[in-house]
């Protein structure tokens, strides 16, 4: 594969910001979309954009694509202004929209063919490979496709011309776990070729497996940018465990662990951060059953970023 080329803005030795957002604000009339949001995404990284429903992820992304226009602030993508040079921005982007709507009467093949003609200079070099990997039947009309298969089609559409930047709004929606895995594998291959990925999601475990950094957005504001490793320490898990033998509550006196509910055999725990110490304690006893669940993003937000925004 060819190395990435950025016309004006790439200087050798310095990792440039592929996406640079400065105090971007979008109001829909009186209602808030995003507010004073600043953010940089570096070349070659997979950046996770995380936030609960209504946080402003889609708003940010659609501003970058020039589908909606900011009411304040500015942003550049690959050195091009998103409002005044939107055409140049879009030349080198692969975009997966959050809301999936395709021309119902076209077959997959026709759809890919139709859209590839808008990029005569960027042939769909990855099309065949992606179709094979995602195992998609291109002869069917899009209206006949299941949600997951539609999503595969739009993934292929966004990626087939091998763009330098991927902007993906909840791209794995509707994909089964196997396909999700394949998808993240494809993203890492893009990254290995020096390409940049901006990926929104509200599912933390999804993002942390793939991304190095995540931006966390809440109520239209960026509340934190963190290395994924740091987010790891902020992870919350709920554990329900049933022991065959008797276990004392005191045994779970561990940093970050709170006992929500307990009797001699059954415990409900909330674990912040590392889970290993808890497992070690559990291992000393006879475990009949256990359920370990990741807390929702909302809960993590409340826990860690609750007071940051008002």
């Amino acid at each position, binding site marked *: 594969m060819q190395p990435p080329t950025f016309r004006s803005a790439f200087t050798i030795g310095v990792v440039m910001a592929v996406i640079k957002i400065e105090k971007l604000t979008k109001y*829909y009339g009186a209602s808030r979309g995003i507010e004073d949001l600043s953010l940089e995404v570096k070349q070659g990284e997979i950046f996770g954009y995380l936030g609960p429903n209504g946080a402003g992820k*889609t708003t940010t992304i*659609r501003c970058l*694509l*020039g*589908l*909606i*226009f900011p009411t304040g602030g500015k942003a550049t993508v690959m050195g091009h202004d998103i409002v005044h040079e939107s*055409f140049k921005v*879009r*030349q080198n*982007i692969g*975009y997966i*929209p*959050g*809301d999936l*709507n*395709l*021309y119902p009467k076209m077959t997959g093949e026709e759809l890919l063919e*139709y*859209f590839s*003609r*808008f*990029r005569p200079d960027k042939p769909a070099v990855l099309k065949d490979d992606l179709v094979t990997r995602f195992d998609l039947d291109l002869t069917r009309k899009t209206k006949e496709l299941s949600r997951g298969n539609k999503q595969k089609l*739009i993934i292929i*559409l966004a990626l087939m011309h091998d763009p330098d930047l991927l902007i993906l709004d909840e791209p794995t929606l509707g994909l089964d776990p196997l396909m999700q895995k394949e998808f993240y594998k494809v993203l890492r291959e893009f990254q290995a070729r020096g390409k940049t990925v901006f990926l929104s999601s509200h599912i933390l475990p999804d993002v942390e497996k793939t991304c190095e950094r995540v931006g966390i957005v809440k109520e239209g504001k960026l509340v934190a940018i963190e290395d994924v490793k740091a987010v790891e320490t902020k992870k919350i898990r709920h554990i329900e465990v049933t022991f065959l033998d008797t276990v004392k509550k005191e045994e779970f006196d561990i940093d970050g662990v709170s006992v929500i509910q307990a009797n001699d055999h059954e415990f409900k725990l909330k674990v912040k951060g590392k889970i290993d110490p808890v497992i070690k304690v559990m291992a000393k006893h006879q475990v009949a059953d256990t359920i370990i669940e990741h807390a929702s993003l909302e809960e993590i937000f409340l826990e860690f970023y609750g007071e940051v925004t008002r």
Partner: protein
Amino acid sequence: MNLNLIYRDIKDRRVSMFMMSMSVLLYALVIIAIYPVFAGNAAFAQIFKQYPKALLSLLAGGGNADFFSPAGFLSIEFLSLWWPIIVGAYVMTLATAIVAKEINDGTMDVLLSQPLERWKLMTSRLTADITLIFALDAVTMVGIWLFARAYAVEISTKGLFATGILALSMFIFLECLSLFFGMIMDRSKALITSITVFIGSHFLNALSDLNKTVAKLRWMSFFKYYKPAAALTTGEVPWKDVALFLALAAAFAIAAYIAFRRKDIPAT
């Protein structure tokens, strides 16, 4: 201009264009086939002579056309009102499909995320639509010409040509008007507004024959500038009216682009 869009749009309209052409031709055929029967029947003529002009105008348009000449009959029964209604409705659906329909369907996101400028999207589709309108207009005129020869009804070639030009400019105006409405409101509202303007114009024009006060507002009705009977009879292209339609079309197209240029595409 984006050929991909133009090609696709025209291809997508193959079936509807065929249906439209067939209905228009069938309608024209029936009217022309009837004319000799009508003209040769004194009783008919008597009945129609008794109709008030204004009522005729309301039901069929045509203004002061002579009901008993071939050109007048064809205008009143077909070209003045019913043909514009049929083709006009089609033009409105075409125009609101340029942007409003795709926003409605949610497909605009993917389309506009391609390297495609908004002005190119609009002008390409406008070009495709005007091509289709021209084709429909030409099919109608050629059809009439053929049927008229077949039934020995006297319709001049020059007259048909003049009418075709006038009608083309009027439909282009309608196209741009609906396009503009489609930029500032959603598709169903844009269609309803376009239809309201159409019907309102017709009534304003027709009632102007009856009422002097209403007549003062006649200039606001685009039907005032669309007079197929005159074009058909004289064989002269009413260039002033054509120019007016095209100027208005250009104005609405520019307004449409201004509205579209920085328009937020709502997510579905």
